[in-house]
């Protein structure tokens, strides 16, 4: 009975007892969720356009952050460094398209997946070779990102502390999703992207250049990675440990569906909030640290009931 009580009742009692703490946990989860969603967004962009599951998105986040910080350390002004980093991500996109995607066109999924894992190794080695393996401080204030925090009083004496950088991250993520939505639905290139996602051959036959589209999509994913790198780097450090965190984008994608941008956002928030609440309220029962696998378990259970994700297209199989 005690066990049942501590699993089923006690966490909720705690939530009601300390509502300000609960809200704080919710907010932390929300912010983490936004960042997961940003990483997942990069995955979705590339998966939609080329059917490639880009494992390297996580390391691209690290790489973009490191390039930005590294350039600034060399004495380049912050905004110029930002522009240069965008340029570097563009070059990376071109190189990936030319040397990885183009020769591997029409290969089975698993080969493409492996090639992006190979790309991950390459970028890890390359990044460490150039910038060294130590964590670096993100140049948040130089880029004009807000610092400090605001405290709200809740109820009788409760405090909810919101870091400004977190608010900024949420706002920037929203703007980015808005821009991507407009880009996909209203522009010429966006329509071409969707055409490619629908059917490669049909897109080719109406004169859309696959190579060009892939370079664009990898560049867009690079920009998303840079934004994620700045935001995440400002919350902690820019380090290669981020790469493991980026794997959390996988359960996010499972929840949201591999092809849906709103799905990535909603999935990110569910995972972010779910794992924070699980860790704080249920984690102590089993010794803590469950954050490392809870997201995957949520995804696993979810998959058993809805294999195509929340917003994914229905999977139809034919023999």
């Amino acid at each position, binding site marked *: 009975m005690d066990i049942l009580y501590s699993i089923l009742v006690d966490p909720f009692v705690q939530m009601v007892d300390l509502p300000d703490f609960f809200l704080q946990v919710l907010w932390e989860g929300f912010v983490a969720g936004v960042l997961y969603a940003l990483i997942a967004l990069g995955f979705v962009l590339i998966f939609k356009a080329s059917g490639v*599951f880009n494992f390297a998105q996580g390391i691209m986040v690290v790489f973009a952050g490191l390039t930005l910080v590294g350039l600034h350390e060399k004495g380049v002004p912050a905004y110029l460094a930002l522009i240069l980093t965008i340029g570097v991500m563009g070059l990376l996109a071109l190189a990936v398209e030319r*040397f*990885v995607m183009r*020769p*591997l066109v029409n*290969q*089975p*999924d*698993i*080969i493409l*997946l*492996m*090639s992006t*894992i*190979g*790309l*991950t*190794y*390459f*970028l*890890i*080695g*390359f990044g*460490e*070779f150039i910038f060294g*393996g130590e964590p670096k401080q993100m140049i948040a204030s130089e880029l004009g990102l807000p610092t400090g925090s605001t405290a709200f009083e809740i109820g009788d004496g409760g405090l909810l502390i919101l870091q400004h950088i977190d608010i900024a991250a949420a706002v920037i993520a929203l703007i980015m999703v808005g821009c991507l939505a407009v880009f996909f639905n209203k522009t010429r290139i966006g329509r071409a992207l969707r055409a490619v996602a629908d059917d490669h051959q049909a897109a080719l036959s109406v004169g859309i250049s696959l190579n060009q589209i892939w370079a664009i999509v990898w560049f867009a994913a690079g920009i998303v990675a840079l934004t994620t790198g700045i935001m995440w780097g400002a919350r902690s450090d820019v380090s290669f440990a981020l790469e*493991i965190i980026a*794997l959390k984008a*996988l*359960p996010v*994608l*499972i929840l949201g569906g*591999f092809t849906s941008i709103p799905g990535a956002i909603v999935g990110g928030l569910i995972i972010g909030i779910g794992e924070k609440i699980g860790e704080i309220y249920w984690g102590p029962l*089993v*010794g*803590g*640290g*469950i954050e*490392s*696998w809870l997201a*995957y*378990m949520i*995804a*696993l259970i979810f*998959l*058993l009931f809805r*294999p195509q994700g929340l917003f994914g297209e229905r999977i139809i*199989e034919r*023999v």
Partner: protein
Amino acid sequence: MLYRESGQYKTSYISDQSIFPIREDRIGMMIIGVIAIAIPFVASDFFLNAIMTPFLILALAAIGLNILTGYAGQLSLGTGAFMGVGAYSCYKLTTIFPDVNIIILVLLSGLFSAGIGVIFGLPSLRIKGLYLAVTTLAAQFFLEWCFIRIPWLYNYNASGAIEVPERRGFGDIILTGPAAGAMTQYFVVLGIVVVVTLAVKNIVRGRIGRQWMMIRDMDIAAELMGVRPLTAKLSAFAVSSYLCGVAGAMFIFFYLGAAEPSAFSITLSFQILFMVILGGLGSLVGSYFGAAFIWGLPIVLRAVLPAMGIDIGAETVFHIATMVVGALIIFFLIVEPHGLARLWSLGKEKLRVWPFPYG
């Protein structure tokens, strides 16, 4: 001229079903066997300890993953954790039964790994492809967490790591622990790996192996033809996890000697996945090639780069090795997506018609 099967007639069912039907293959295998036995007598302890033993162990793990991914078509990213299950259960077994021969315990510990593998294989009945990869990631992170958070697994050590105790067998030979000789460990590992590989070879060319391949090629069609997806998929998970578990137990007991939970992290899973893909999906000999390549390449690079007169720190060499491995993986996927095993069979085809361009 040298390598062709013409004139070699099969006159009995036994010769028809032999694993190496061509005489030249049998001679080749014998030469490899002699070399494998001769290596310890000519090579240094370092070569045995740091290269040959881990290579054999990782080749076994790669065969394990190849069963699941190459033969049954189920993508798994949790190999490292399944190896960990084998290592920790072997550690517990030898703690509880210190007098039983360690080799028997190593082979038994694979059973625990197989059980865990079947549990995490259950979702494969409903989901496949990349989605399944995520559920195996759940296994990876959950099991890794268990290795850290359940102190019973590492006998409540203050360090949280497992240290291999000294175990003797076959009279009074020291098999494990710091005092064990490199040659003894090499021969134990070689024996286990060879026996298990032969067993696996017979499984994959028999009824069960054919069922796995049917499931891989088209699961719905296989189901219509009477293959039970439940038994086929779960048996693939069981056999695969068993092999990985045995490999993991050997990895600790005959190679590392002590291990922290991080030894079985996702990095190891990826490494073994690379071995399988580069070696060739659905090929046992490919698993050996892949293991040799992935394990040997960084060692070779670390030896070669300073020797070429490039004077750089050890850390930089390590970074460059990572980079080169990544680039080579992409390169190999581009030039030969079917892996080194395919190059091997192409080479044999060429040899068959040599010295003529066409047979």
